[in-house]
């Protein structure tokens, strides 16, 4: 009897053990978490700006303009392309809002010195202006696409295009460079899986590789690691550097042509495999000429729109397309050569670091209101210690030039209740430069 009871007890407990439910399985690690392969993006309040074209030698110098809406420290790093060699470093600080500059030759004077700037707070932005033998400027970049496009530039006689691939990261990177021009897709097989050593850069000259191209669209696709590309276009004695961009179906260029630059060209590239219809709106201080041009752009073809024949002085442009396209502005004339990218969309706040008039170099701020309402823009010229504010009204569909006269200005902050687009230019004895503004994205 006792045996039976014990056996029954054991059996009952065994059944109980078997019946006990399985615990909830632990969720898969990182389940639901989307971890994109990070690009060069950095957070707004701790942004890193990469400036591939800074240079300082006997004939040239660069100054880094930094501007920040919040109090921030800016740490500069200039890698030395010799393995094991420590980078050159410097720092400055800005009051919020405020701006500051750093002259490269004070830190390193060894020719090309691509570098990057790290801000301790933000929103903040950085730009580089090269002065001396040439005058060129553009904003640095803190975020970018997986595939960069450079629309603009040509390799006709006396012109030179050089792609700089800057790898500020400790990993060797690999990129594939492709391009198309008015003659079709270019054969650039040797530029497949181009490796760029860590904390180094590499220049690719298209002068020999792609001779006599009038409208080139170059793309850089990152295969491994991270790379920040920039393009240099030189014509006669002047040189222009600009940063690459992604694709967009809309582009705004507050400045395409100014006085002294006879030719102002918008280059649109269609990297798609389908035809794209491109509409061009023109804006002058007098008013808009909407849908001034309309083109059908064949697949993998660039379009060079020369605005030299457009009457009036300065011209701004808005491009809209039925698919995403690449676009850029190339302007040249007696004053020099200027190239820059556009803004994908208007914004309410803009930072324009390094925008200043110094010596014989005269800077101009360009505002474009492509909308249908008048807007009021607060222009804050940022000095090291304060902001000098002024109000500018921009009529609908017009472009406004604002000369920078404040001698201590080191950058500009623009704010408005309505979206608009901003860019700036600087003209001096050694050339002319266009620089896109940096839209501050609402958080």
């Amino acid at each position, binding site marked *: 009897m006792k045996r039976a009871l014990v056996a029954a007890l054991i059996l009952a407990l065994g059944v109980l053990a078997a019946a006990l439910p*399985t615990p909830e399985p632990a969720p898969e*690690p*990182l389940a639901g*978490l989307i971890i994109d392969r990070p690009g060069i*993006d*950095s957070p707004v309040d*701790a942004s890193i700006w990469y400036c591939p074209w800074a240079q300082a030698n006997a004939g040239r110098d660069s100054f880094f303009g930094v501007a920040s809406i919040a109090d921030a420290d800016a740490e500069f790093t200039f890698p030395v392309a010799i393995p094991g060699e420590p980078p050159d470093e410097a720092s400055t600080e800005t009051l919020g809002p405020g701006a500051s500059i750093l002259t490269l030759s004070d830190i390193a004077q060894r020719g090309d010195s691509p570098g990057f700037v790290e801000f301790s707070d933000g929103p903040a932005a950085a730009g580089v202006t090269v002065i001396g033998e040439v005058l060129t400027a553009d904003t640095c970049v803190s975020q970018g696409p997986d595939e960069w496009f450079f629309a603009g530039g040509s390799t006709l006689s006396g012109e030179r295009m050089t792609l700089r691939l800057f790898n*500020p*990261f*400790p990993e060797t990177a690999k990129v594939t460079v492709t391009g198309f021009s008015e003659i079709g897709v270019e054969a650039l097989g040797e530029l497949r899986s181009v490796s760029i050593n860590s904390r180094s850069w590499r220049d690719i000259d298209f002068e020999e590789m792609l001779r006599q191209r009038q409208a080139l669209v170059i793309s850089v696709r990152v295969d491994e690691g991270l790379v920040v590309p920039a393009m240099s276009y030189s014509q006669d004695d002047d040189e222009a550097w600009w940063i690459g961009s992604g694709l967009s179906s809309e582009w705004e260029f507050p400045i395409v042509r100014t006085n002294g630059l006879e030719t102002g060209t918008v280059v649109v590239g269609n990297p798609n495999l389908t035809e794209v219809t491109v509409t061009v709106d023109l804006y002058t201080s007098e008013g808009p000429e909407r849908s001034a041009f309309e083109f059908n752009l064949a697949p993998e073809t660039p379009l060079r729109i020369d605005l030299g024949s457009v009457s009036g002085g300065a011209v701004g442009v808005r491009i809209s397309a039925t698919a995403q396209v690449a676009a850029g502005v190339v302007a040249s004339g007696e004053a020099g050569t200027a190239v820059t990218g556009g803004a994908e969309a208007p914004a309410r706040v803009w930072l324009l670091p390094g925008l200043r008039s110094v010596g014989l170099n005269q800077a101009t701020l360009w505002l474009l209101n492509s909308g249908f309402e008048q807007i009021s823009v607060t222009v804050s010229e940022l000095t090291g210690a304060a902001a000098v504010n002024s109000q500018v009204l921009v009529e609908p569909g017009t472009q406004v030039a604002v000369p920078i006269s404040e001698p201590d200005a080191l950058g500009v902050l623009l704010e408005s209740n309505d979206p608009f687009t901003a860019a700036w230019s600087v003209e001096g004895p050694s050339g002319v430069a266009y620089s896109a503004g940096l839209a501050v994205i609402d958080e």
Partner: protein
Amino acid sequence: MLNLMSIDPTTTTERLGPPGVAAVVSAGDPGPLRRCLEAIGSQVYGVAKVLVVGGGDEIRHIAGEFDAAWRPNLRAAVSSIGPEFMFVWALRERAIPDPQALRVLVQDTQRVGAAIAGSKIVDADRPELLLSVGYATDAFAAPYRGLLPEEVDQQQYDVIRDVAAISGVSVLIRRDLYLGLGGIDRSMAPTSAAIDFCQRARLRGARVVVIPGSVVGYDGDERPSDWRERAGEVRAMIKAYSPLTLLWTLPLAFLIGLVEGVGRIPFGRFPLPGVIAAWLWNIPRLPTALRQRRQARRGREVGDEELFRYQVAGSARLRLLWDDAMLRIRDRFSEGVLSGFADAVEAGQQRIQRPAFFVGSLIVLFAFVATREVWTEHLPLVGFSLPPAESAIDTLESYAGGWNPAGLGSPEVLRPAVAGVALLQLVTFGSGGLAVAIITVASFLGGAFGVGRLLRIWGIRSVAGHFAGSVLMAGPAVIAATSGTHWSILPAMGALPWAVRSVLGSRPPARTDRMATFAGAVIATGLVAVFVPAALLVPLVAVTAWAVLGLGNRWIAVGRMALVTLVSLPLLMPWILYVDPLDLVRSGVPAYWEPAWPAIVAVAAAAFGSILGGDRTIATVGGWGALMAVVGAVLARTGDFGMGEELMLAALLLNGLGVAVAVGAALEAMARRRETSGWRSLAALAGGLGAVALVVGTFALAGPGRAGLPGDTLTGTFAFAAPPGAEPSRVLLFGDASTLPGTSREIDGLGYRVFVPPYPTSAEAFLTEERLGDEVLHSLLEDLIDGRSRRAGAALAEFGIGWVAFTEPSPLEALFESQLDLVTLRSLDFPVFRNEAAAPIARSSDGVVWLAEGAGYSAPVGGSTGDVFVAANADFRWGPGKWSQSDWGNLISTTRSEIRFSAYGPRRLAAFGALIWFLGLGVAFFAPRLRGSRP
């Protein structure tokens, strides 16, 4: 020519040669002294002077009766022996020399030119039995008598021979040599003292011989098995050997002691405490040993090689162990069918009537084979199977209120297992690997034989018991735990049957033995809890289960076990004072044990077979085992109710014991099935088959030789992060929790932890409660995942993290690949990133890296200036100097060259209390055994 007279007036004197002899009798027991003095008085070679040394008034009185002088100590005795004496005849009080003994000794000593001569020692009551004809020794000064037990004197050794040493029962020594060597070392036990004296004499070029013609009876046993003899052997080596010889003999002697300590366990003897006591005995006596060593070696005429001439190869003690084993083989064969193991092998076809010894041998072999990687190499480093820290002292300091080094550190108390291993590590000259190997092998043996002893209570024979023991140590429960890298279950499992047996076994009649049994139960229960803390109550549950189902007056055992459990609690101090029991049983991954179906079927067959097919006792035992097994299984699957891995380990212990008991009962039931018939016999057969299946299944554990633990994943894996000569930075390791060493934290379900390379030690296995630094690190990782950092290296360097690694590919790698200051190491088999930012764990404000030293840090040569930042969770006990919290870490302003964590006093006291309690229990347990082993 002198006319020497015997002190016995009835004895006729004869004219002999001139040497004068003074007899010196060492006495402590008055009983046999009278007989000894009478025998001296009966010598045909008259003794001119008799001195009795030592003892009290009674001995003095007896000496007076025989006209012998009495001296309180040997020095006084020797000083009273004048130059007119050529020889000193040293005797022990139990010596009964034959009337011719001294004459032969003196004559032959002079004839062969010896300086020391010993007599042949025979049993006083049975003179045909040989006790000693001189000793060979081994290199470790242990005697090797070369005699079989009860070997009969057939004059087979009657030749004057040079020997390593002679018995101290009767020794003739040249007086000048005696004085020159400072006499016999009285602090040593007799045999080792004789060996020591002979070795010192031999160093002076003296000849040591045994003269079998001189026969001396001995009233007692001459077995040198006392731990004091072992202590004396160590002292003898220290005094005689050159430093070079000592360099290898001392460590080897200790290792031999340990091997003997483990090897005698199957024979029911526990010499390990004696081994340890012998070495401890020598520590305070080292100054005198060194003093006497100077005296012994000054003016020596020969080197160590002269001592080696009369030594046997190998270890005399291990040879004795082997001899004992062989004797046991003979004992196990009744009716003289077989005379020994060798005969059994040769005879082959003869029937082995009592195979228990062979099964036991098989179990021993199995234990060594199943753990061979642990003792030939090291513990596989994987998961919770981690090696002890290099310094046992530092570990013990950490345990006793010091700094817990796990992760970013904490003042939380370490687990008691860490201290347990460290204590043994101290004994093994700091070798953590050896300590772990000893624990592992001893656990296997202890557990396997413990079950045998436990089941013997109910008449279950050794064969069934030993096989059941193998199931305990290599059955489904242990495989489940060890495959989960829980090495610590092995010592807990090894101790568990002893804890239960101590309470359920019959109570010894003697009070001291009862105390020893109780102390043994407390120690065994404490060991279970030390290594698996949640299993503290498992022995009590096991005994209670017996009380529920068992036979006879068993409820009192529950009370005893409860008392034992209560009394074992102090062994867990200070850890026990701070642990939250509920947190403990809930910690770790959810408990859910899924044994293999064949194992379930086999266990069920064994359990039900023993219940249904065994006799009343066997059925009850089988039922008890089955109850423990199913209760353990139920508890091991309660993960859905919040129970964790710790409870599962405890449950597996209970299940393991239950299955082993059921297997033992089933095997016994099968063996007795002829006593039953019908369905019961069939049930017993089925149960036996199930048990056999489980026993056979244990061989699966022996294959890899890692005691069931998975393969090593950490040895050498992170060696790149700890290059020689460089101060290592921490490694931040990501991966599935099951692939990380020890416990880990989680971020979005992915496990991670930090450790100091090359691998975390057992003290770092269990991460403590999250503190500020851990939270900040977690936030940093969240920022990284949010893409808010491109300088992860600099941020991680604040935590002393110099490396980021993944145990397996993870999408998270992309975050680290895009950092400005982390470099991917492509040459490794797994993803690793090197931090370019310097990441010292302790650094001064002038940038100098401080060096890790135990749980603290010291300034490098050349020193440093300024405050020192220690990248560990902030705690005010870091010092010396002014401490302040810097963010989440410690900033110490000090002028000293070292930084330490000041121990928390009460915890340290508690830890010392635990140690004293453990030693006290050890004394209570071993005292009767030590007393019993004296000659």
